[in-house]
């Protein structure tokens, strides 16, 4: 009787310890699955296959942890690279815009001044018929130069508007908004609140480019008649929202439109540790909201002004 009891007890105990090991294993697997990559399962002794299984689990966990860390590193590297590319592209755009504007643009204006001098000399010329023919030519050349200057201005401004660099983001936003309104006849309301300090250059660029992209989307896809833009300076961040009353974007990728543009906006904001959201309501409109935390300006503007 006692022997039987002992045997049963031993079997039950063995069973229970097996159960405990399996439970441990599954608990650990669950925790691991939830992202606790440091957790390992204790390896039971004298349990043959189960010990084997626990060892295998642990070495799998080890390998996964390593992969995970590699991915994190790769992600960080990509983020750094992406930020670097973004900055390099802006810097390049700024440089070319300035060279075009201040270099080629100014040379063209000098040529115009020289032509004006030439034109005056024609007036004192004795052969009047020749002189007037030359003058007609000069006037034509001056017109062509004006065209060239317009062209230079347009490309330069498209690359990177001087208003943004010289007068700061609030002025640039006001200007961008009104130009949009004049160009599209979409009625646009702008609200700028509490901007008292100059905004860090990278943040300004991101805010400007996001607005630009959002307004482009409004023209291309939204079929809207009204746009409302608001820029608010909170204690710790800047928040910008662009809302239209158009047909409303689909709420998940591929959004139905311009996916890369939206990813681009999101990326810009994320690189500055900000939040990005886009929300479409069918036939009611689309709202883009971004929030970018403030930071110490490491390169500020000459000045900013609200108009």
């Amino acid at each position, binding site marked *: 009787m006692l022997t039987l009891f002992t045997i049963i007890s031993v079997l039950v105990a063995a069973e229970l310890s097996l159960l405990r090991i399996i439970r441990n294993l599954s608990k650990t697997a669950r925790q691991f699955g939830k992202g606790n990559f440091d957790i390992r399962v204790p390896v039971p002794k004298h349990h043959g296959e189960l010990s084997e299984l626990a060892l295998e689990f642990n070495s799998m966990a080890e390998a996964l942890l390593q992969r995970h860390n590699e991915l994190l590193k790769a992600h960080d590297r990509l983020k750094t690279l992406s930020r670097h590319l973004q900055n390099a592209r802006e810097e390049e755009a700024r440089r070319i815009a300035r060279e075009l504007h201040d270099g080629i*643009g100014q040379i*063209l204006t000098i040529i115009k001044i020289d032509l*004006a001098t030439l034109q005056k000399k024609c007036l004192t010329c004795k052969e009047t018929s020749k002189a007037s023919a030359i003058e007609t030519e000069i006037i034509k050349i001056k017109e062509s130069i004006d065209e060239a200057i317009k062209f230079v201005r347009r490309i330069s401004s498209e690359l990177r508007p001087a208003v943004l660099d010289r007068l700061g983001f609030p002025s640039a936003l006001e200007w961008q908004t*009104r130009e949009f309104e*004049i160009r599209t006849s979409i009625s646009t309301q702008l609200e700028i609140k509490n901007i008292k300090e100059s905004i860090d250059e990278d943040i300004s660029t991101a805010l400007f480019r996001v607005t630009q992209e959002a307004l482009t989307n409004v023209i291309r896809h939204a079929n809207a008649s009204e746009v409302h833009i608001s820029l608010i300076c909170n204690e710790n961040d800047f928040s910008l929202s662009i809302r239209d009353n158009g047909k409303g974007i689909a709420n998940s990728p591929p959004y139905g439109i311009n996916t890369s543009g939206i990813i681009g906006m999101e990326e810009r904001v994320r690189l500055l540790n900000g939040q990005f959201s886009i929300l479409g309501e069918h036939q009611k409109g689309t709202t883009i909201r971004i929030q970018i935390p403030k930071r110490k300006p490491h390169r500020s503007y000459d*000045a900013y002004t609200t108009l």
Partner: protein
Amino acid sequence: MHILLSDDHVLFRAGLIRILKEKFLNASFEEVSTCPELFKKIQEKEWDLLILDISMRGQNSLNLLPDIKKIRPKLPIIVLSMYEERPFVIRALREGALAYLTKERASDELFRAIDAVWSGRRYLPENIATQIADHLALKKPERPHETLSPREYEIFLLLSQAQSVSQIAEKLGLSPKTVSTHRIRILEKMGLRSNHELMHYAVTHSLSQPPL
């Protein structure tokens, strides 16, 4: 006559002086190419005219204008810049420049601008004037209460002061039914659902006075 040219582009300054000398034979010209130099010259003596470029060696000369105006409040200033965008023009005029000209117009219009500022008038060329006019002509969207007729607005104000339909009817000498019809129409036009929302609207838009 002393004319000060402030521009960081040597060739442009040279071209400008060439055309100015033809007209102002007795004028003396001085040139500066940076903001600090400019400020020094302004402090040194009185000038009859300042021709000012905005972007000078990466700095924005408009930031100096308030200080310049403080020292020389009567100095006529013509801004002569490559920038054509409206915010630069508005900023320059606000800070005390009398004329704003884009550089490609210098050869044709600078003298006109000089004549204007010397007789105390402003001068804007056609490209700039058009831009500002475009901006001013923008029609602001009507706010909901601006769509109301004068009578509706009157009733709207009374409703916003928590007056009842019959009180309003008595005050305006109308039948309660008419006032009630007006009320429905007002709510419809403004996209509101109740008197409560109407009062809230009036408060948030600070509407308590009759419209001008």
